């Protein structure tokens, strides 16, 4: 059973090669016959050329060199049939065989080389992806170390100096630990979502989901995370369903809202706008704060654009955005960020139709 399976493609390939050779030879024979009949003074060399051309075609398209040799032999026989034997025949015979063998080796060598180049390119791409992943990991570990240091430091200080600390100071320390650990939870959540984007070609498994439900849950979570925040939403009245990985899109919305609340340095309400266009749905998070600093505007999504120095635990905007961008790209959408004059604005799009996954 297994063996037949193994042999099957081989058999198919041989059948293909055989048919191809037969077709080519038939074509060559036909043309040469026509030439012989129609031309008043046929020249033997022209016919040899026709055959040589088809032998090279066969050698180029077929892997095994046997077919090329068989074709050459056939051509010689046909030549003998069209032009009765002359004195130079054996010379021609022994001349054409090495030519076809040579062409064969050359073409098969070329095919092998093309395969090698493709393989090499694939490896390079893989390495590129691996590098991206490693960069992300490095940046993340770096960002995780900061709150961890703070947690370890605060808890050690608490344990070692319990007796000297006032109640107020103790509360302050524990509050700090609590804040840092919450921040780490967000971070880890972000990392977990990245694992949902599957390896090689960065695809996500999408399902038809309701936009208002996903946005609704993101809003609800944001309100738990930032009690008292005000978010104005504008969502079209009609019910929109889109293919997406709901958890990931929720994470993107959460990150964008979180960024707007943390980094705008303003208490003005932020806006979440959903717009329905013919091919895409647009999601916009707009804040009325200080905007995105000019110097990181053009490298928002490459992970280096940390909005704040990394000693500041709030500086996870960079990583959050890299993750958002990866998620949206995996959905075949786009994520853009710019300043709208009174603050920052981030917009992502999601296509309405499910596309075949490619990147």
């Amino acid at each position, binding site marked *: 059973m297994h063996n037949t399976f193994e042999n099957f493609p081989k058999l198919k390939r041989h059948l293909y090669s055989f048919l191809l050779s037969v077709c080519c030879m038939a074509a060559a024979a036909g043309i040469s016959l026509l030439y012989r009949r129609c031309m008043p003074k046929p020249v033997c060399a022209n016919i040899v050329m026709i055959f040589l051309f088809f032998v090279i075609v066969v050698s180029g398209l077929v892997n095994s060199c046997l077919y090329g040799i068989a074709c050459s032999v056939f051509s010689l026989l046909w030549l003998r049939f069209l032009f009765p034997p002359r004195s130079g025949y054996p010379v021609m015979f022994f001349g054409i065989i090495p030519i076809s063998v040579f062409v064969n080796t050359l073409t098969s060598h070329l095919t092998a080389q093309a395969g090698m180049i493709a393989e090499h390119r694939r490896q390079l791409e893989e390495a590129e992806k691996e590098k991206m992943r490693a960069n992300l990991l490095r940046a993340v570990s770096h960002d995780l170390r900061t709150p961890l240091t703070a947690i370890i430091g605060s808890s050690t200080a608490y344990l070692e100096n319990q007796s000297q600390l006032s109640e107020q100071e103790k509360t302050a320390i524990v509050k700090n630990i609590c804040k840092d*650990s919450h921040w780490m939870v967000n971070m880890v959540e972000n990392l*977990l979502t990245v694992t949902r984007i599957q390896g090689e070609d960065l695809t996500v498994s999408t*399902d038809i*989901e309701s936009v*208002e439900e996903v946005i609704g*849950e993101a*809003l609800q979570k944001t309100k738990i995370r930032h009690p008292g925040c005000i978010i104005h939403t504008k969502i079209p009245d009609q019910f929109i369903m889109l293919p997406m990985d709901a*958890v990931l899109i929720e994470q993107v919305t959460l990150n964008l809202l979180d960024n707007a609340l943390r980094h705008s340095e303003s208490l003005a309400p932020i806006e979440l706008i959903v717009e329905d266009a013919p091919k895409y749905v647009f999601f916009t998070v707009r804040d009325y704060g200080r905007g995105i600093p000019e110097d990181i505007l053009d490298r928002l999504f490459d992970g280096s654009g940390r909005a704040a120095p990394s000693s500041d635990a709030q500086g996870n905007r960079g990583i959050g955005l890299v993750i958002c961008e990866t998620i949206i790209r995996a959905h075949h959408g786009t994520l853009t960020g710019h300043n709208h004059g009174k603050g920052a604005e981030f917009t992502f799009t999601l296509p309405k139709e499910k596309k075949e996954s490619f990147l």
Partner: protein
Amino acid sequence: MNPKIKILLIEDDRDIVSFITTSLTVHDYHICNAVTGREGLCLAASLCPDVILLDLGLPDIDGYQVLERLRVWSSVPIIVISAHSEEDEKVTALDLGADDYIIKPFGTAELMARIRTSLRHSFVSVPDRTYRALGLEIDLEKRTVKLNGQIIHLTQTEYQLLALLAQNSGKVLTYRTIIHTIWGPYADNSNQILRVNMANIRRKIEADSAQPQYVFTEVGIGYRMRENENI
């Protein structure tokens, strides 16, 4: 003095055990701890706890198995503690009979709220036939829905869906459970029809369907209705 409410914690991580034990003891619960699944099953049978907190990653037997074996003979509220945020895991746990789930890391406040909710469910022996929360009132006997005194007109399916959620208010119902209950076991498992009905219900009862007050979405898992205030 009322006897203390007994809670069985089946969890193997010592830090988590100590944190939960401390916070629950402070809130005047009586807590017992099992570190393995087998021990948990034994204690559940001998102690008859009021609530079980079950960690899915146990050293000896799979958490799902513990859940299944418990459900054979007991209807005690079970809250699953899970370290993963994969939806499939939560859905499986809920479909196997867990009442609720909570994901690590969680805070004390969240844990307390979940315990109170599940206790409320188990203590109600004869559920009142009216659901009431904020301005919404569902009379399950007369089959009427009122929002701030105004009667809301729902289609047959929409009413069934809302009533099902209301009868299980506070609990997450998975998409599969809802579809099987309302459209029967042979219904298509795609959730689209459910989503559309839910969207229509929300258009009728919620002021802003993106910020629902009554029916909350648990993305990838199911729906949860606001606690019934009429218990």
